[in-house]
């Protein structure tokens, strides 16, 4: 049976332009392709990954333009499509002024007080 892994993503936009994605979101996809049942919990600044219609395009230095900018909202949707669950901490979103109707469909808000129960659902909890 696939190992059930929850990755907590807290450091957001750390290298997303240079990598053209978020390395931990990417790893969740890659591990899932290798048979693990990977899921994400967005906390802190990373709750912003769930906001719809982000646009990181336009980076250019000299003649070299970035043609494939990061699309983290799309990467989260793709993980959900593959069966992954993506949670975000409701209070971390609200203190940043992010309303529930501004996040992509399928994201699941959780309260901080519900985290212990959430963690018990997983074989591994990795905090990045």
């Amino acid at each position: 049976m696939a190992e059930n892994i929850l990755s907590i993503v807290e450091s957001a936009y750390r290298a997303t332009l240079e990598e053209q994605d978020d390395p931990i979101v990417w790893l969740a996809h890659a591990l899932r392709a290798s048979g693990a049942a990977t899921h994400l919990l967005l906390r802190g600044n990373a709750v912003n990954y769930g906001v719809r219609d982000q646009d990181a395009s336009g980076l250019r230095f000299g003649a070299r333009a970035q043609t494939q900018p990061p699309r983290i909202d799309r990467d989260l949707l793709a993980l959900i499509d593959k069966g992954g669950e993506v949670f975000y901490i409701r209070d971390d979103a609200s203190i940043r002024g992010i309303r529930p109707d501004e996040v992509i469909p399928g994201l699941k808000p959780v309260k901080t007080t519900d985290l212990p129960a959430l963690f018990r659902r997983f074989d591994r909890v990795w905090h990045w």
Partner: protein
Amino acid sequence: MADSDTPATITFVLNDPPYENARSTTAFRLIDTAIRRGFNVNVFAYEGAVALPFARQAPHANAVHGRDVASEDHPNTKDWIAALLAEAAERQVKLDWVNCGLCVDERGVAEAIPGTRRGSPADLAKFSEASRSTLVIPTR
């Protein structure tokens, strides 16, 4: 805009390795702006930043994105630096990129792209002395 016949010079000190955080991209934006505004730019790459122009960086296909290497079109940091060097040449200003040699040796990244060079902290001292300002973008 530099305000005399000889362009003014700005020095940047970079500290962070590639692919770890957004500070290197921010530094590239500032360097790009300085070049486009007619400044000569010095860069002293220290510690992990000496890997930014490492010539053996290679793009890769990305199965998670569903793209092959061509369509992923991933500029490595060495490509950004090459673009900045070309832009400086086109605008007839100088971009002098120096990698701290001891940091290079520790990390095994001696193969830097053309247009960058190996140096030492003595270059930073000279850079700072000759510059209108020196901006340190440190690692955290």
